[in-house]
């Protein structure tokens, strides 16, 4: 595990020194400041607006961070040939993937959690109560972000960065559709569409802004199962990504 952690640390340091992460973080920060300025129809409504838009911003931020951080890691390593001496000697392909993934995942989680803290600060500054489930909800977005990160890594092993973002966005949108909406995409084959939808991840389980906005309690077991669900899909995507990467020739 030590080689993977060292490489993850190396990846983190490298990502933090790039402009992408700072650009996305500034956009999230500006969005939070903007949300704080939304006029409410009464004090309670303003609080709901802030939570609703804030969590939506973090959802979009998780997606942007996944694409922005990870879509270019492997192509850049190949183009600059930094991957050659690393894969040739100290690390196996699996360790490379895990190191790069963990490094990006930690940076992404930190950015989302900082966004969550920012949202709490906006709520407090506007004299609204911070819902107790706001932080766990952000943790679910972190898990969703990790899954998206695994998807981005998977695509990056066989597509170019400009294709990676739309493919991930497509999966991001499709994974939030209900079975009925999904069937409507190709109405001629409802059975097949149902099966495909069942196989695709259900990312809506990570989005709990509506119950939080309306002050509903969310059972702890729900969080636990949602995290397990997300981590399982993430592990599956990483396994598929590794299987693809193992077959790749590093020309």
């Amino acid at each position: 595990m030590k080689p993977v952690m060292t490489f993850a640390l190396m990846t983190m340091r490298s990502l933090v020194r790039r402009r992408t992460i700072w650009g996305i973080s500034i956009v999230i920060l500006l969005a939070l400041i903007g949300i704080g300025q939304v006029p409410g129809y009464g004090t309670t409504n303003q609080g709901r607006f802030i939570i609703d838009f804030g969590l939506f911003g973090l959802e979009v931020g998780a997606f942007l961070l996944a694409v922005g951080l990870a879509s270019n890691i492997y192509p850049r390593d190949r183009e600059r040939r930094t991957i050659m001496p690393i894969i040739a000697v100290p690390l196996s392909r699996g360790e490379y993937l895990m190191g790069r993934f963990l490094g990006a995942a930690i940076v992404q989680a930190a950015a989302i959690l900082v966004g969550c803290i920012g949202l709490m600060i906006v709520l407090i500054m506007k004299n609204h109560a911070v819902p107790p489930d706001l932080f766990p909800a952000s943790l679910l977005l972190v898990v969703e972000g990790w899954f998206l990160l695994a998807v981005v890594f998977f695509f990056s092993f066989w597509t170019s960065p400009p294709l990676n973002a739309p493919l991930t966005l497509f999966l991001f949108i499709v994974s939030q559709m209900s079975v009925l909406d999904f069937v409507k995409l190709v109405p001629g084959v409802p059975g097949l569409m149902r099966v495909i939808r069942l196989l695709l991840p259900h990312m809506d389980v990570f989005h709990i802004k509506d119950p939080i906005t309306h002050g509903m309690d969310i059972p702890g077991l729900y969080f636990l199962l949602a995290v397990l669900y997300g981590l399982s899909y993430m592990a599956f995507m990483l396994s598929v990504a590794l299987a693809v990467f193992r077959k790749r020739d590093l020309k």
Partner: protein
Amino acid sequence: MDSLPIEVRNLEKSYRRKLGLSSFKAVDSLSFELHTGEILGFLGPNGAGKTTTIKCILGLLRPSKGYVRLWGDVPGSGKVRRRIGYVPENPDYEDIFTPLELLDMFASMRRLETGRKEHLELLERVNLSGWESVRLRNFSKGMRQRVSLALALQSRPDLLVMDEPTGGLDPVAMKEFRDVILEENRRGASIFLSSHLLSEVEAVCHRAIILSKGRKVAEGTMEDLLRTEDRFVITYRPPGGDASSEPLEKEVPEAVLQETIDELRREGCFIERVNPLYRSLEEVFLSATESAGGGK
């Protein structure tokens, strides 16, 4: 007993051309081995398949046919990777790091116990003392090459695989590089040196392989490669010549060697020595690659 550090048998690597409609062979039916403690030169013009072969040896490319074994094991296995040092052509590490940081991180990734003291010594060995805390983005190509050498030597590898290691180095640095190669070989490391700098290969290698169009066109010890098959040089002194003057030389084909010696003796000449005629490696290289139809 340890098996061969490198064994390549009937290696073939094909690449698809654009659109995947056809393919070309970058390496074709290549077989050779590197023996323990040997320095093997791997020569060839650009596009001959040298880097492709190295990538197959390191497990970065999968052979289309044939196989590569390192100490009897498959390339890329953890056991094998721990015993290898690799100096890539035009190394490009993350340039936000300093040499010392890179050495620390690579040591950790290799599970080595080396610390700052050993790393500073290593940097001194590759002439980078005083640069240990400077980011690589401020380094010249030659300095990056030295960092690459330090990283390769860090684990005291049993096998050093070097792909054009002296490209971009000035003559002094090339000489230092060669000295390090010879030191490592004396320590016991086997060395696979790919280069198109013939003087470099001639100076350090025990044996060489010449590649052209992905095929092996010549192989042998340096002496075998450089010796012409049928020409000899007779060094002699004419009768009554001054002992302090330079002796004369006569180049003759093997077919008339004995006849020429007898004739010179009859003339009263003193035969000092008879040696096979050696060509330069450049001549060998050009003759081998031209007969195979050039590089690409």
